[in-house]
């Protein structure tokens, strides 16, 4: 009993002091889910640079814009299939509130691949245009957004 309590206290102390992403230490496919969510943050960070310029919150800088656009293009070409193992969807046991990936992803692989190629195409145009002035950057934002939404519309549940 004493050891048991000690373990509970130790766990409680750990979770109180360690800033972890997940409420529990162990969820199925934690590694893969963390990887893909971090991957999305890389996208978000770089789109954020372009978007802040498009929105007028950050002064336009051709070099920074090109760099961000090239990062996005490179990211979209990375193979990340291993981050999406079957059974790591939001309906799987223990994954509610951890991932918002709908199980439909795994029954619609051809569509996912198509959407992913469409995103790469949009990012190719963006990478070519981002350094050519704010107007060129702005006119490519819509297509990049469509690329993101291509998967987020059918395959990601609302997170609130």
């Amino acid at each position, binding site marked *: 009993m004493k050891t048991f309590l000690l373990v509970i206290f130790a766990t409680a102390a750990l979770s109180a002091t360690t800033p972890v992403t997940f409420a529990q230490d162990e969820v199925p496919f934690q590694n893969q889910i963390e990887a893909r969510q971090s991957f999305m943050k890389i996208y978000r960070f770089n789109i954020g640079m372009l978007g802040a310029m498009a929105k007028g919150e950050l002064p336009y800088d051709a070099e920074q814009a090109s760099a961000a656009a090239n990062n996005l293009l490179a990211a979209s070409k990375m193979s990340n299939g291993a981050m999406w193992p079957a059974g790591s969807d939001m309906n799987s046991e223990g994954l509610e509130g951890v991932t918002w990936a709908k199980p439909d992803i795994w029954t619609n692989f051809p569509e996912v691949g198509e959407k992913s190629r469409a995103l790469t195409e949009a990012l190719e145009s963006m990478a070519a245009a981002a350094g050519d002035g704010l107007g060129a950057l702005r006119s490519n934002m819509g297509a990049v957004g469509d690329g993101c939404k291509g998967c*987020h519309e059918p395959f990601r549940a609302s997170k609130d």
Partner: protein
Amino acid sequence: MATPFGVFRSPNISPDPEVGIGNWSMLDFINAMVLGLSPELEHYYPAFPYPHYQNINYDDLIDLKTYLDTLPPSPNQVADHELIFPYTFRRGVGLWKWRYLERNKSLRTSDPKTPVERGRYLVTGPGHCGACHTPRDVFGGEMVDRFLAGAESFEVGEGPEGESEGRIPNITPHSDGIGDWSETDIAYSLESGFDPDFDSFGGSMVEVQENTARLSAEDRAAIAAYLKSIPARRSD
């Protein structure tokens, strides 16, 4: 659309005289949009968002019908709704209307001249934002005291699992909602589909945003101004 009340199907509203609304008079159209009544004076189920469309002004309704009349007729015959007992009784909708229609009407603007009031008009009328963002009670009526405070998605996946479509976000100025979004953030998100963290919109909001992207910049700014002006409400 699969809901807890059964499956609703979107009818053909093209000007086809047989299966669409090609034979409707202007009055038929306005009765449908404002009173939720068919040309045969039967109640429509409020899956058709007339509780919101009743807040659209007559000039806009007339323009809308005039525009719909210019579209190509479609011969597409849509199957009936498949509802669960007791919702199969349309007459019950009359009772529902008596209870709920006035509540939604109370949200309307009397004078959509200023940006905030123009925003109120767009949000509570044609935009029908509350249809998803306001929680509903057990009878499917919107809880106006929880207006736009976020809700469990009313839509459920088809099939035995009934997969939830997730939560619809709180869009009031509360910290549970979009309190830290500026008016520019809101307007830009409706234009581009990116939230202030540059995550893209997903789910059913994508289709909505693709429409708000076609509004004028003034109308998006008006929606933003209005959403900043409503009472902040916490999520459930």
